[in-house]
């Protein structure tokens, strides 16, 4: 699937200062029954967002209109648990393009990159600074510069570099995916098989 090309993004952020946010919380298993890749955003963080009678839970950040933006900031070890890619789809479908944390689970990180989401790893201290900045002003903007691999708290000008695999960076900036690449390798693969 083609997704939007990613270069730079300046946006306020939604804070979720919880650690070990696992994919069962991001999208509970009972919403995995779809056979298409649509509408997962509605059920993003379903059980934290809504109570049993489907009423929004007022103090959950996604339900607080003061928070907005295309950046989600989560606590350490974001995306642990089940490999379900639906977690990345739900985050993308909801409208987030960047997830920031001090640590991501492996599979989630791969799934995010495959689906047009940029996972940004910052130091634990910097993560605290981000949370503090949002607490002080929920509209405070952040800048994500993929080209220069830099994340900036615009208000204070403080920034931090982040790592990304050069190949994935190329894919994200061009809106390409791995399958396009692999299909182009057909002959090499066939040759490998006869080895």
């Amino acid at each position: 699937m083609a997704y939007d090309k990613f270069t730079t993004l300046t946006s306020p952020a939604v804070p979720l200062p919880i650690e070990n946010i696992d994919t069962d919380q991001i999208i509970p298993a009972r919403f995995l029954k779809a056979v298409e890749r649509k509408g997962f955003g509605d059920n993003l963080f379903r059980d934290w967002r809504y109570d049993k009678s489907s009423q929004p839970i007022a103090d959950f950040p996604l339900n607080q209109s003061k928070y907005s933006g295309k950046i989600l900031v989560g606590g350490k070890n974001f995306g642990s648990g089940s490999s379900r890619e639906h977690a990345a789809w739900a985050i993308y479908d909801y409208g987030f393009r960047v997830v920031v944390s001090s640590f991501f689970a492996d599979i989630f990180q791969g799934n995010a990159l495959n689906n047009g989401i940029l996972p940004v790893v910052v130091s634990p201290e910097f993560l605290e600074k981000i949370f503090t900045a949002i607490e002080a002003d929920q509209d405070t903007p952040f800048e994500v510069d993929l080209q220069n691999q830099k994340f900036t708290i615009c208000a204070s000008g403080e920034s931090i570099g982040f790592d990304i695999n050069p190949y994935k960076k190329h894919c994200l900036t061009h809106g390409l995916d791995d399958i396009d690449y692999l299909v182009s390798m057909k002959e090499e693969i066939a040759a490998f098989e006869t080895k």
Partner: protein
Amino acid sequence: MKTLFDKIWDSHVVKEVEGGPSVLYIDQHLIHEVTSPVAFLGLEKRGLKVLRPEKTIATPDHNVPTINQHLSIIDELSRNQVEMLKKNCATHGIVYHGLGSEGHGVVHIIGPEMGITQPGMTIVCGDSHTSTHGAFGAIAFGIGTSEVEMVFASQCIMQPKPKKMLISVNGKLNKGVTAKDIALYVIAQISTSGGTGHFVEFAGSAIESLSMEGRMTLCNMSIECGARGGMIAPDQTTFDYVKGRQFAPKGEDWDTALAYWKTLKSDADAVFDTIYEYEGADIEPMITFGTNPGMGIGISENVPNSDKLTGSDKLTYEKSLKYMGYNQGDKMVGKQIDYVFVGSCTNGRIEDFRSFAQFVKGKKKADNVTAWIVPGSRAVEKQIIAEGLVEILEAAGFELRQPGCSACLAMNDDKIPEGKYSVSTSNRNFEGRQGPGARTLLASPLTAAAAAVTGVITDPREFL
């Protein structure tokens, strides 16, 4: 100076991408109804067919009912997914082991059973517990749906090479300690993120003493410490298990395969990025008290307090205990439970039901306990019947259900009600994993059996 992992990985690299991941060839692709439909859809949109249908097998397991499987699935969405899988397999020429067929079962149980899982292979599936197959000395790991589509399209996947970790457990295991306890112990030691970025090799005399079933349980849980997967070098136990199975090599092919498999071990001077060593004697039957698999303790211990934690770690810990309805310092033994679930790709193999049945033999299920005894596959179900375990279970008040993932992730009707406690042999105790509001206590089949007959958390060693 290569590790077991290096040997298999290096022999499967088709190409190294400049500044990017490796293109890795996949020997076996396992698919199920939940993570495949969107991948098939993507493939069709690109106008492609599955490149190697003969290297792919399919089974519906995640959301199938575990009673009355001969009837049509009642839940419409589940039925739709299962039917889509069947249809997609027919379109692309993939062998499909449907509900009620001889080959049906949880995908990670049927692969090894049929002899499809073999040493030295690369195996992937859109399910994190694909790591199970690492027990045979294979590189096996879970992938996301877009990677499923990659494998469909090219029989390859793009993967950066992970770091290598060695976890060795030496010495004899204590009475009542199983592979599941080793797994929960290791995860409690290194945490749910301790293995991130790594592929684990398990070694040491305690590991070598495990049966294939036990090794599968351990490798299955390896990902719960954050690792990409876990593996164990193949040895005589492995070869004996594989030999004679439906898809195992035969005759001369067997000899050739065996000669190769015997080379599959880490060289004495192989270099690991991270090493942990444990003593088997330090491990007791384990149980979890919180909402991630790293929150496990020896069953005789008390719920740890949060004194040493600070900031968000402390908040997360307290939130977790609140969800579980437990307090710091609580004794685990004696706490009331409501449900027992025996099954899943972690502990849904014949050995698990043998150990459960042996334990409950001549005893009675506690009245306050609802038990779901769910075989991992049709073959396991048949074996349970053939060995006369059903009679033992029934006499003790337990009923055998039909194969599937069941309450491991509660996508079907097998959901633990809100607030109820479930001693479960599965692999995850996240909030809501076994149903909204359900409280999961991960443990071995033995510990589950002890709880099932007493109605409270019980140290199984008391009965051994």
